[in-house]
């Protein structure tokens, strides 16, 4: 691999990992608090759709991002209401929401864009931090990215600090391990779980919006194409630890980037195997073949006061 190819590979790995990373941070916080958001896929799709539509209508990608976050809140509230108040099966309600959102965004896309499909949508410009952008070869290929990419590591650090050192972080983890203890301590497990689902929604919407207005600059039907499930897989593979989850996302991004990189290098590997590899890694991880299982104890268990 030449230096140029390595640089391009690194750059595209980071770019492809970004939607996963944003969504996975949200999902990690939520799972640590005991809520499994199967609807992550649908939330990302909501963000992608709302972001694309708003950016197209207003011509401003920033407004697109705002719209993405605004649009996902009702979805997240519905998911939170179903899982926390109605204590619905978290998997069933999540899959149902995914089906609903896939249908609704496809319908909305046809209504709004109709024949003008595939029209380019105004997106964020790429930017390189001073200094880093001037590095030969790597500056252009790796460090010239949409600003959200640079925000992501900051969010990871902030969330890691929040989970580890703050009272809120301890309360969140308690909600995922033993919600009853939390309730006895005078805090509401249900209210916390509402909060984490909304946080997940916002992060997923950022991830989805990144896809639509940060990377591809268009919306296509069902464009998330399993990214939400992949983000959940990253949390599992990362053993519910934020740094490991972030690394898992980068790894999954790299596996996706390899699909395009390997043929360019003249190496014949069936692309199906590369696309499958993140799921396979996550599967081996949950199968206990890669270390021990460390899922939060009350994960996906509705809380009955």
């Amino acid at each position, binding site marked *: 691999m030449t230096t140029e190819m390595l640089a391009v590979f690194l750059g595209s790995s980071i770019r492809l990992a970004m939607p996963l990373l944003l969504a996975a941070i949200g999902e990690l916080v939520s799972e640590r608090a005991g809520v499994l958001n199967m609807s992550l896929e649908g939330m990302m799709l909501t963000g992608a759709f709302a972001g694309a539509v708003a950016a197209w209508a207003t011509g401003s990608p920033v407004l697109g991002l705002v719209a993405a976050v605004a649009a996902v809140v009702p979805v997240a509230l519905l998911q939170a209401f179903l899982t926390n108040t109605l204590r619905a099966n978290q998997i069933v*309600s999540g899959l*149902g929401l995914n089906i609903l959102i*896939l249908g609704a965004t496809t*319908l909305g896309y046809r209504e709004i864009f109709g024949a003008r499909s595939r029209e380019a949508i105004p997106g964020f410009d790429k930017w390189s931090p001073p200094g880093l952008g001037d590095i030969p070869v790597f500056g252009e290929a790796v460090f010239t990215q949409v600003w959200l990419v640079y925000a992501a590591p900051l969010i990871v650090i902030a969330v890691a600090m929040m989970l580890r050192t703050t009272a809120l972080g301890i309360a969140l983890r308690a909600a995922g391990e033993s919600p009853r203890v939390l309730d006895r301590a005078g805090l509401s497990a249900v209210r916390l779980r509402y909060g984490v689902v909304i946080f997940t929604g916002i992060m997923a919407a950022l991830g989805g919006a990144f896809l639509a207005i940060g990377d591809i600059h268009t919306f296509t039907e069902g464009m998330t194409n399993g990214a939400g499930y992949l983000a959940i897989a990253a949390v599992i593979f990362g053993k519910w630890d934020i740094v490991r989850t972030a690394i898992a996302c980068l790894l999954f991004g790299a596996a996706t980037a390899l699909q395009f990189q390997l043929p360019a290098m003249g190496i014949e590997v069936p692309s*199906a195997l590369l696309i499958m590899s993140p*799921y396979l890694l996550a599967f081996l991880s949950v199968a206990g073949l890669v270390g021990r299982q460390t899922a939060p104890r009350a994960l996906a268990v509705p809380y009955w006061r």
Partner: protein
Amino acid sequence: MTTEATSTPARAPSWRPHAVAVPQGLLVPVAAVLGAFACGALLVVATGLPLGQAASAFVDGAFGSAYAISASLNRSVVYALVGLGFIFANRANLTNVGGEGQIAVGGIAATAVALAPGVGQLPFGLAFIVPMLAATLAGAFWGGIAGVLKARVGTNEVISTLLLSFIATWLVYWCVQSRQLLRQPMTSAATLPESPAIPEAAQLPLLTGDYASPVTIGLPIAVGLAILVAVVLGRSRLGFQLKAVGLNPVAAMRAGFSTQQTVVLAFLVAGGFGGLAGAVMLLGDQYSLKAGFSSGYGYDGLVVGLLARGSVSGVMAASLLFGFLRSAGITMEMSAGVPTALVVVIQGLIVVAVAGAAFWLDRKQPARG
């Protein structure tokens, strides 16, 4: 079984197979379906399309011709098989989300065996029976992995079956992509990769023998299996064992049932049903393996299983509903210009409504995990 005494609860007269309150259990899904259809109608009006035209296209697509009815029925058979497997495992309180993957490996196995040298020449219908059995075994294996993991390592079956589904979906892609596996030699650069066609002898016989109404023998097979599942779940010791393990594993163990064996068995059966569904799709409808052939069927089957709330008749009703709904949606798009996505919305609404309604339905039942 240790002693005769421990097995007596299975025969105790107080135990009834379907102790769930029937009227309410029926009311909620029906209300959810009607409500979802009403929302669908509102959406059609909102998008400015004539409702009558959309409705007539919808009915046409579902019941308009012998071909339409047959296509819907064939689709329902796939949903019914996956749904039956789902409620079987769910009786032991296990959630099999892996129907999609079990269909996929079933499809691969059915194709590989049907195309194997000599199989196409087998007499007495063995040309299609052998691939069907192979697919069932492949599906059972795929489901069994999740069962063994659950029993041995304690891996959450929802996560493992979901991941196995993704792996299987890409296995199909790999099989049709690689010439060493099942890809047919390229005919032109424009054709999407797929396997060679299933030989005629291996295709499922049509009930009418006429391609104008292509209902396959998958239908009677599904009906027969439904009766079998109803009997096993409702009247047999195995059915009681599943229920006991599902409701209270500790008590079940005290009664002499092996929790681990039950879990593995439940997943073998659920997976087998998924694999058989894959064979029915390949040998009775698709006739060649293509990437993404299982797309959505497994998840629709899962939804059918969920809607049924544990009853076999519920699976049959829900699979008919969704089979006709999906077929009608496709026709509606072609003839009335109403996007199929509308049907997807209706389906999503039904699932969300039923998932939420469990709050009221399950209150009268003992707490479940």
